[in-house]
Structures are given as structure tokens and as C-alpha cells.
């Protein structure tokens, strides 16, 4: 199944099961079916539950906050994740505040879906990964499933069981890819293991060539970078005999660090990889948490890789130089050992 199909099917089932579930966003209606075709077919099946709106991100998210406070289950689609900046006030000062500041008298079960990431030549305002901007926002959960997750089931979990706002990040390059959720991948040589869950809607994955052996380096990443990390790990093993494991998070805020601490301790050190800006990014927070909890088990310093501190160029050739690539990961891992 493709990543986009998994989410589309989940949305279908959610609306079918519960008439209080509505999908709200721009250009969702058939035959167009949303800018990334995630809502294809849904407005035909559920004409009352799919609500195409004007280009008013703040009001859309704000209205869905109101719907959620009255017991509905709204899911908002932000067409490009970059437009989330237009909803920041609603997320920071409204959606994530009401439950707490009203002393838990109300819930805001709202899911905001936002496609993030580059690699398609969309340029500086349509290619960013802005989720790390929301790391300090108390009361917000951020999910960002990769192709090694079933994004539809994680979305369903958020819609059905979460009582508080969730920012659900979908990587644009993942949409047309097959999800890989079997125990053995890549013709059988990659083992995929779900790490012990501490919370139902979080699913942290370990990918490893030799799961019983301790790796030299563990890469910790999420979203669209997961596949790039895997390709780098394969190159590092088959060309340089460096064993690299990969931890792939589905929930990046709060960081479910307890789920993968033991995997970090098995390695000599870790490389934290994200597509967003490295400066001020998610990885800085994670690195700090790792230093605070397992400093003694690290043989060498943690390294981080993220986008350069630059806007994302439109030119697909220039873009490659800004966003982390397989080559940059390989180079960074090698440099950690020398």
C-alpha cells in the first residue's frame, strides 16, 4: 500500500465510523481531491463531512478548535506545511491552551495534518520542515510517520483516542511510496522491529542489518529522512563495514525517549538526523535529552545533521546541497569514527 493510500483509507474509515469526524481544508473536493490527493474520493462518499474552505488558514484551524470544543472530531488539512505559520496563533494561544487554562473543563481533540519537506523543487516557501518550531509548545503532540510506519493507523489512533491537539506531519516525498511494515525488508536483510511501546499512539521502529549485534553508530530520525538513513546505512555496511542501526520515531513531541534509550546504549554514539534546519532544530533537544540520560554510555560525542541554515532553493540541483542526503550521512558517520 502507498503512504497516500494508507492515509486516504484511514480518513474514509474514520468518517464512515463516526459522523462527527470532519475533514476541513482547501481544495479537498473531488475531482481535485486535495493538492497531494490525500482526500481523493472522500467528498463523493461523505459530502457533509468533507469541507472545502476559502484560503483562510487561521480561521480554518480556529473554527476546528471551536468544533472540537463542542465534541466534534475535526481533522484539518494545511495544503503545504509552510502555511502552518498562518495558524500559529490558533495552535499556540488557543488549541493547546484551552484544556489547561480552563482547568481541564474542556478538551480540544483536533488533528492538524500538514505536508512538509523538500526534494520536489517547490522552493523556499513550499519545501520547509517547520515542525521543530513547535517543540516548545506545551500541550501539543507532534506525529511524523515515515514509510516504515502505517501512517493511516497512526492517524486513526490520534483521531479516535487523543483528546488534545495533534500536529500530524506527512512528508511530501513519502506520499507515492510503498509503506514498508514487514518484519524483513530489502529482500530480507533488514530487520524491522517495533520497540516496546510506552504510549499507544507512538510507534518507534528499529531498522537493523544485524539486530543481535551492537552497532557502532545509531541514527535517530523521523519522517522523510528515514529512507535516506537506511540507504546510507546499507552503503556504510557494504562498502565500509560499519554497522549502523536506525531508530525511526513516529511521535517527535514529546520525545518518547524511554522507548529507545536501551538502543542508544548499545551503540558507541548516535547521529541525529532531521530534514529541518539543524540550527535550533529538533535534534538539539533530543541530543540534550540523551546527554542528560546516558552521557556515561557514549564513547564519542553525538553528531547532528539537518538542513543548512539557508532557505530551500527552488533549483532541484541546489536544493540537494541544503537538505541532508545519503552522501552527507555517510560522510558524517565516517567522520565520527576517525
Amino acid at each position, binding site marked *: 500500500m502507498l503512504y497516500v493510500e494508507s492515509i486516504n483509507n484511514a480518513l474514509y474509515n474514520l468518517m464512515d465510523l463516526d459522523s462527527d469526524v*470532519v475533514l476541513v481544508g482547501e481544495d479537498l473536493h473531488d475531482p481535485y481531491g486535495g493538492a497531494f490527493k490525500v482526500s481523493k474520493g472522500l467528498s463523493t462518499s461523505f459530502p457533509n463531512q468533507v469541507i472545502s*474552505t*476559502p484560503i*483562510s488558514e*487561521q*480561521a*480554518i*484551524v*480556529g*473554527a*476546528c*478548535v*471551536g*468544533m*472540537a*470544543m*463542542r*465534541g*466534534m472530531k*475535526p481533522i484539518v488539512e494545511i495544503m503545504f506545511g509552510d502555511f502552518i505559520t498562518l495558524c500559529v*496563533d*490558533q495552535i499556540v*494561544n*488557543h488549541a493547546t*491552551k*484551552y484544556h*489547561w*487554562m*480552563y*482547568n481541564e*473543563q*474542556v478538551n480540544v481533540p483536533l488533528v492538524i495534518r500538514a505536508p512538509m519537506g523538500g526534494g520536489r523543487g517547490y522552493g523556499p516557501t513550499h519545501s520547509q520542515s517547520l515542525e521543530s518550531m513547535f517543540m516548545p509548545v506545551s500541550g501539543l503532540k507532534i506525529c511524523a510517520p515515515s514509510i516504515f510506519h502505517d501512517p493511516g493507523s497512526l492517524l486513526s489512533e490520534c483521531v479516535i483516542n487523543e483528546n488534545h491537539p495533534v500536529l500530524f506531519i506527512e512528508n511530501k516525498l513519502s506520499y507515492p511510496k510503498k509503506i514498508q511494515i514487514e518484519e524483513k525488508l530489502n529482500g530480507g536483510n533488514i530487520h524491522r522491529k517495533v520497540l516496546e511501546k510506552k504510549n499507544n499512539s507512538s510507534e518507534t521502529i528499529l531498522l537493523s542489518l544485524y539486530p543481535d549485534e551492537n552497532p557502532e553508530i545509531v541514527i535517530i530520525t523521523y519522517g522523510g529522512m528515514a529512507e535516506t538513513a537506511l540507504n546510507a546505512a546499507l552503503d556504510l555496511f557494504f562498502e565500509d563495514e560499519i554497522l549502523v542501526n536506525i531508530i525511526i520515531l513516529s511521535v517527535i513531541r514529546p520525545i518518547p525517549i524511554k522507548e529507545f534509550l536501551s538502543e542508544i546504549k548499545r551503540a558507541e554514539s548516535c547521529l541525529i538526523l532531521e530534514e529541518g534546519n539543524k540550527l535550533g532544530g529538533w535534534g538539539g533537544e533530543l541530543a540534550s535529552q540523551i546527554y542528560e540520560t546516558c552521557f556515561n554510555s557514549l564513547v564519542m560525542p553525538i553528531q547532528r545533521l539537518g538542513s543548512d541554515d539557508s532557505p530551500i532553493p527552488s533549483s532541484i540541483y541546489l536544493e540537494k546541497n541544503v537538505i541532508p542526503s545519503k552522501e552527507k550521512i555517510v560522510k558524517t558517520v565516517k567522520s565520527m569514527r576517525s
Partner: protein
Amino acid sequence: MEIPYRELYKKAILIRFFENRLLELFSEGKLFGTTHTYVGQEAVAISSISHLKKEDVVFSNHRCHGHYLAKENDPKSLLAEIMGKNSGACGGRGGSQHISRNNFFSNGIQGGILPNALGMAFAEKFRRSPNIVVVFIGDGTLGEGSTYESMNLASLWKVPLLIVLENNQYAQTTSVNDNLAGEIIDRAKSFGIKSNEVKTNDVSELYPLFGRIINNMRQDGEPFFQLVNTYRINAHSKGDDFRDKKEIDFWKKKDPLIYFKNFLSEQEINKISKDVMKNLKEIEKETKDTQIKFK
């Protein structure tokens, strides 16, 4: 339409005493943070909210005490909230401008509450409930873009949202004349929202007006925009008032409480005022003495 002057006066004087006492408590150093008093605008809250059912929603702004008292009639939970006590409406977490109880909500971000109220009205319509949502905004809110996004959607979706714009002539310290181009009422008209404008603090005009609007909304389920030109007699917050004294004196002659003298005897007014004051004093003493508990 029969106008319950006694009940309305009781609410109006409760708001007046409550708000002015808050300013005293601030000057005595007994409160922290900030507050925005509703003195001078009481007629708007009581004339509109008195027509609502318990199930109807009120969404208010930073200047929310009057709306809260009119809807919930519970000064004890409000004072405790402002004093930071566990027994407050929100356990002390919200304070003066972030209040919720039953179907009342307020938040202190200009423009941010309008989309929320819009979504609530959508939910009521979606579930075919007979309830309406009333949102109170001010002239200052008109500077925020979300106001226009929300009015467009309210009209497009045809939801039972009553937008009450209390033009108290000032956005904090800046006069509406320096802030606002064009006419306020034209903003609602341009989105095809039914609208009306009045300039009065007289409950004998405002109460029947809101009664008609709310009755009609319950029939047609469509949005309505009511502009009330009024005046904030007190400063924006706790002090720092730079307005022309002549202007303030002009509006003091149009104080909403004065109009009650046309409909209630001096004796009745005094009796109600005395009872309300006595009750408030008891509440204040009780609340002051409450110890804070940490969870």
C-alpha cells in the same frame, strides 16, 4: 416585550460594583497581573445575554467579567479566579481574561476567539441543535485579519453566530478615529451578514433589540452582526488614562445605570444595590481567607 428591569439592574450593579472593587483591590496591592473592567458597557452584556438559554454559548474577550457575570451570575468563582485561588472558575490557571464555566469561554487574544466561536456555531448547526453562539468583540479587534476570515466563513456556512461588536471608542489607548478606515457596519454588510447599528446604553432599547435578534436567529439559524456604540468609562486596564476628561464626562451622563431611574424607584434601586454590595463583601471576605492548595 416586557423588560425585567429589576433583574437587569441587579446584574448591572453587580458588574459595576465587582469591577470597581477590583480596581480598589489592585491599588491596595491585593491582586496581581492585570484586569480590564467593563464599567460603562454593562447594558450590552445584560441586554443580550439575558435572552440566552443555559445551552447557548458565549465567547468573550479580555474584557470578559461583565459577560461572565451576566451569563453565569457567579461572582464568587470569578473573584476567586482573579485572586488566584483553587476555587476559581479555572482553579487560578486562567485569571482575569481566561475564564470558562459551563458554556462560557473567554480568551485574551484579539481576533483569535472569533474563529473559535465560528466553529462552535458550525458544530451546533452540524448537530441540528437549537443553540446559538454569541461572540463579543471590540473595535480594536477589527484590526485583526482573522475577523474578516471568520465573517466570510460565517456568512458562507450560514451558522447561528451572533457577533456583538462593542465599540467602546478605544483600542487600548488609541482612538477608533486613528485606527479605523471606513465604517464598521460596512464590514459586516460586505460579507452579506445581516447587521444593525445602535448608539445607546439604555437597556429599554437594547433589551428588546437583542430579544428580536436572538428570536430571529433561532428561526433562521443565520449569522447576525450587532454594532453597539458605547463607551468604556474606566481606563483600558488599571490606570494610564490619557483620554480627554470632557469626553469621559460626556459619556458619564450616558452611564447605563442612569437609565434605570426611568423604570425603577429610588427605593428599589437602593435596596438592590445594598443587597448586591452586601453579598459581594461576604464573597470577598470568604475568598480572601481561602488558603491555596498545591496539587
